[in-house]
């Protein structure tokens, strides 16, 4: 353990003074850049341009229904959106859905991953079956949830004798979370299972030998070793959950997440200015989430937090 923890330190130190490159090496690198250039340019064109264009649109008053009134308004749209109660309600709701569903998914996904990891018989079959919910198109799945919860014809509402699963606000919230969790837990489990494979059996056996119980082995050995995998899974799911659209759109029309509100303003309202402002804001939020995760991830990577573990 100590050995692996110490190793990266000199490697890191060695990186700082840049080694002189030979003539051949430099030519090779230049060729590398040239070969990359076309792909990089295409990437810039298809991803960079839309981003720049929507930033540009977000600084204009631009409503398709009033084409004559278009003008450059600089940051007015941002002031409007950030000063709007609707936006913050949607933002709060989206955050709540994200946090609640990702936490549940993490717990369930971990259980599922442990089970799948330990499965001896029919491993492939178990994995395939558990992935089915993730393979179903979200809109289709959302519709089957909606019909299942329908207060007149739904079998789930009949089973639980609940008349208003999708009408009452609180229960509608949990219905949406349930649909999200049902759908994406397998994805979480798959990523976590990849992490589990990293945990060497020797380590577990050694820990058992030293008298660690199953829970201790899990918290003290398995989780620290697979931390990078957990963080990657969390990052993916958080970014995904924050952009929730389909389930809300089908299950609870009228409820706004940030994505639905953007859609309402952009596509229904035809207001390119406000709509683009919202999509830029979502982009920034997602970037912040990713940044935070990578910061945390960077400090938590095996080897770099050697101080704490020693």
């Amino acid at each position, binding site marked *: 353990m100590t050995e692996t923890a110490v190793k990266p330190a000199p490697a890191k130190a060695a990186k700082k003074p840049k080694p002189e490159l030979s003539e051949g090496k430099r030519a090779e690198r230049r060729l590398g850049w040239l070969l990359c250039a076309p792909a990089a340019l295409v990437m810039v064109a298809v991803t960079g341009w839309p981003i720049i264009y929507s930033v540009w649109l977000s600084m204009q008053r631009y409503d398709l229904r009033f*084409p004559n009134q278009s003008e450059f308004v600089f940051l007015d749209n941002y002031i*409007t959106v950030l000063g709007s109660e609707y936006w913050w309600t949607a933002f709060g709701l989206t955050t709540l859905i994200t946090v609640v569903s990702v936490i549940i998914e993490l717990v369930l996904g971990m259980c599922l991953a442990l089970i799948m990891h330990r499965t001896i018989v029919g491993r492939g079959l178990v994995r395939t079956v558990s992935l089915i919910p993730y393979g179903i198109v979200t809109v289709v799945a959302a519709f089957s949830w909606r019909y299942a919860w329908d207060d007149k014809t739904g079998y789930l509402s009949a089973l639980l004798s609940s*008349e*208003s699963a999708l*009408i009452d606000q609180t229960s509608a919230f949990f219905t949406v979370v349930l649909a999200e969790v049902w759908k994406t837990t397998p994805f979480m489990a798959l990523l976590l299972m990849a992490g589990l494979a990293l945990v060497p059996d020797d380590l577990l056996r050694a820990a058992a030998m030293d008298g660690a119980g199953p829970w201790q082995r899990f918290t003290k050995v398995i989780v620290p070793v697979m931390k990078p995998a957990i963080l990657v899974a969390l990052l993916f799911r958080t970014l995904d959950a924050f952009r929730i659209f389909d389930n809300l759109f089908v299950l609870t029309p009228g409820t706004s997440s940030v994505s639905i509100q953007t859609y309402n303003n952009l596509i229904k309202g035809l207001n390119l200015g406000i709509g683009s402002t919202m999509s830029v804001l979502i982009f920034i939020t997602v970037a912040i989430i990713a940044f935070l995760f990578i910061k945390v991830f960077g400090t938590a990577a095996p080897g770099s937090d050697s101080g704490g573990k020693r």
Partner: protein
Amino acid sequence: MRSASRTARKRLVAAVGAALVAAPLLTACGSDSGITINVYYAPEQVFDKVVAKCNERANGRYTIVYNKLPREADGQREQMVRRLAANDSEMDILGLDVVWVAEFAEAGWILEWTGQNKAEAERDVFPGPLSTAQWNGKLYAATKNTNVQLLWYDKRVTPTPPRTFDEMITTSERLRDEGKPYQILLTAAEYEGLVVNYNTIVNSAGGNILSEDGKSVVMDQGAVKGLEILKRLSTAGVTAPDLTAAKEQQVQLGFQQPGGKAAFQINWPFVYASIQTANPELFQNLGWAQYPGVNPGEPSKPTIGGYNLAVSSYSRHPQEAFEATLCLREAESQKYQAVLESLPPTIQSVYDDPTPVDPSKPADPKNNPTMDQAYPMKDAIVPSLEDSAARPLTPAYQNASTVISTILSPPTAIDPPVTADRLRRELQDALQSKGVLP
């Protein structure tokens, strides 16, 4: 019973449809010029027969193709708007809900009607529905069918229908205490259906939500009165538990369901046909009346619904498109759709037309009905149309409607003066497409 009458209905569609197509077929022998006129229109059961008739009439000069838009109004608008914003020339005739005409006209997406076509499209049309096809004093669409909500009731429970909302709520409370069916069903989910009801109540109270030109917010005393009525209605315990999720279909099913608790339903005339099959006993005792008013002794001013047909500015064959539109919405087509799928015509003379759907054969209530036989609720629809009021005409209607339905939801939480203030504030922004849509 259900399947029997359904097959009878199908046979009626088949027989009459065949007649409608076959008559001009004998004379059709022109060559196909290859011009295609694409109609984008909401799904309707027998509209394809009307299209077929007009194709025969075109005699090969052009072919009309009926492209079905999604069932939900929002979905229809979104598809058209998205494609028009991209200057799509594949759309020729557009089926517009009556509230979209101003928006499409202002954006320059639809062509103005002029000259002979205009005269033909305006002839004998009820003034209310006609006003929905106009914007800034010009005609931008031809009315296809109108629509107006009626009060449907069970004559066994209430032999005479209530005339005002107050009367209806009081009656309903009495019926509830007597243990009879009592519920008042209406569309009050957070969507356009709630706006329609609110608009009717406000207009009936003599108030206005927006100014005549749709440029400013009025929200006068009548508009506040409307809020009070919605509040009282939703909190008196006379509505169904799913009030805040009720759209047309829930209202329809709740009313016609055998053994249901509903005494009144406020809904469009399409419900007539389905009650016939779903609940024959109720059908025998079904009554209908004009939408309840607000002030005693004054009739209500029901909100006009329905569809208009417009020609896209990006169409490559506007002349043919105008001609095809006129055929699709002519009196004969309107009568056909009124008889077979209860769509109220916009042309006045159709209501008095004594000839059956297929004039070449004798009238017969089952297979070849007249308007009188198949459309008895016209006695309530015609006066409703005469009293009717259009929804506020404004290009920003979608914004205004979204704001209204959001603020009014749920109706139980309305606090009249406070809600009115909020409506005033947010509608003003919405009309100028400023501010954020919920």
